[in-house]
């Protein structure tokens, strides 16, 4: 199960927080900070997987991230998910964002954060993977945007 999806920039400012564990505001922010602290020290040639620290759930929790320019896309998952599969899923998310926003950049994600949520809800539902074809995701998103 996917426990949380975070998008934050190089300084740790959140651009998207989607937590499937039903946490309250304070806990959610704490977890985000802790995740950011674990990730910011990683160099680009190191592997994209980290084990969670004690606060985040210890060795049962894995943090899988990808760094694109100024943004980190982070998925926090438990031990039942395949790490390499989640890496591909992050790719699907990024490509969907790219198609929906036309050459997406960080500002798009900042100013249209509700739309990013809608796209994410087409890919993941309740912490489980729903759709992996980015064509379908983009199609559903565009259809819904047309409805008044």
């Amino acid at each position: 199960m996917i426990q949380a999806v975070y998008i934050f920039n190089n300084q740790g400012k959140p651009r998207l927080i989607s937590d499937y564990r039903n946490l309250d505001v304070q806990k959610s922010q704490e977890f985000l900070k802790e995740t950011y602290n674990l990730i910011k020290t990683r160099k680009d040639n190191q592997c994209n997987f980290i084990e969670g620290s004690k606060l985040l759930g210890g060795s049962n929790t894995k943090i899988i991230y990808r760094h694109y320019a100024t943004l980190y896309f982070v998925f926090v998952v438990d031990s039942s998910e395949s790490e390499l599969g989640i890496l591909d899923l992050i790719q699907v998310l990024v490509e969907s964002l790219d198609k929906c926003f036309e050459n997406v950049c960080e500002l798009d994600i900042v100013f249209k954060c509700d739309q990013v949520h809608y796209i994410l809800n087409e890919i993941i539902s309740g912490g489980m993977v729903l759709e992996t074809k980015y064509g379908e995701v983009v199609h559903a998103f565009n259809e819904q945007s047309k409805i008044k």
Partner: protein
Amino acid sequence: MDTSVQLKQIQSFVNKLGVMRLKDLIKAVRNCKTAADERAVIAKESAFIRTQFKEENNDTRHINVSKLLYIFMLGYPAHFGQIECLKLVASNKFSDKRLGYLGIMLLLDENQEVLTLVTNSLKNDLNHSNMFNVGLALCTLGNISSVEMARDLSSEVEKLLGNSNTYIRKKAALCALRIIRKVPDLLDNYVIRANKLLNEEKNHAILLTGTTLLIEMCQLSKNVLNDTRKNVPRLVRILRNLVNNNYSAEHDVNGVSDPFLQVQILRLLRLLGHNNVEASDLMNDVLAQVATNTDNAKNVGNSILYETVLTIMNIESEKSLQVMAINILGRFLSNRDNNIKYVALTTLCQVASILTDSSSLQRHSSTIIDCIKDTDISIRKRAIDLAFILMNRQNIRVLARELLVSLETTTNEEKSKISRRLCECANRYKPNKRWEIDTVCRVLKIAGGHVEQDVINNFIRLISTSSTELQQYATSKLYNILNKKNDTVESQEGLQLATIWCIGEYCDLLLQSPLDDSLAINDEDETNNSSTEIPSETEVIDLLERLIEGSHVTNKIRQYILIALVKLTNKLSSNCRDRNNSIIAKYKTNINLEIQQRAVEFSSLNNLNDDIRSVVLDRMPALENTKEKKSSSSSSNVS
């Protein structure tokens, strides 16, 4: 146009005029130079939104809620917007509804009573004619439904799972998953429809969500597991089609067709084949096919191979398949990509316990040793775990050397774990006792500050059960390490404790010339070669005195030194005896109770008759292991 309609439009336009748009709020926050500024902007806007909500204005509600969600994401409280989200959901406009559901998903959690108010809206939307409305409702339900909601709306979801529209069905499948998790009793209602999902061989999303749902159901109920086994041939067929690249351009990722689906099918097959020979037999061919045909140049292929290996190791597969799986993992280990290495190491750790013969694994020990030296800490940790699993008599020397080197660079929590495991393994697989003593000495030298007490106790027990030559060797080695005025050595508490105990017990051996010269040669620790002189009595007592009066020494060390000093009064000449007694006497008034008690008692030992005192302070007999002793009938337990 109708004037009333025009009037309405103008009215709504005017209403929106005074309200800051989301874009402007974001710009304002980004322009803040300090955190206090940002807090001020947010506080002002929060207050404004609150008053706006009280005015009950339908046109501006969605603008305010979207601002509220942004504020919430930054970490400020936003619970006062929950009821507004409910009102948005009840509206007829799709965009309002969508925003309302998003707000509910973000701001509420399943424990809140407000959530039950949404149930009615959800029910209406689940029965709506527009598929996107249904989709919204299913999405919300799938993300945050509580137990009561799950129970209430389960029948709607069951119906939707049989709907002809594939968009709805795939969402319904995941929603059903959450419902089953919340209310396991409802599992049986979904079994038939879930199995039917697998019939949809053209639509990969349905297959994907269907297999996910079945995986969850099989994990929860043995009956469903047995029932689902009849689908194994179908799953095998689907997997074979995917691997043979019956090419569909939409599902293709880098030349591999729908890797996510392949991975999920492999997982389901793993569950179905576990402990079941007939099902496993059906899968053997296709697993071999996937393993050989998948291209491992890209990450995609590797993710599939990884799942294949896990599946092979968990079902009743043929030996040749298992060997193939280990070889795949071996190839992964030498891959330059760190991600692949990590994944291979993790799997090998899991698999090593299942393997019947570990010779195939030993073949890769040199690669594993390279991984221990890797710069990436995630890989190092995994490689060290794997090294401990692989350890046996043949490779212990090599592995122990590597582990000692890596011990110097690990974090403190890891140090105590690794040192304990290393000492246990050294005990189990040692080639000879002297090697074990050397290894434990090195461990103490590097990580002495973080070893736990029973590791030290075991070491002491080891020395006391050794031959006299080894005892002398160990004591003189420890003494020489401690004697060098080295900062790192002085902070290693474990090392100091062991050394002090040995000095106390075997000081007479320490002061003699070496009984066995061959022990001194072939010492693997090069730094010791220079200073193997035999110390004199005064030098030994100098060392103990320096330690006991050191500023950063703990009370435990002081206690050990006091005992060592009093044992020495028996073994050394009379002027040293007086010196020892005067050192001990200094601590008779120490603040710490334990130290004071010992000092007073040991000083009074002085007044005893010589014979009695020498018996009391004689060398201790070899310490036996208490666990071994419990099995025998005699209860003379000296530890």
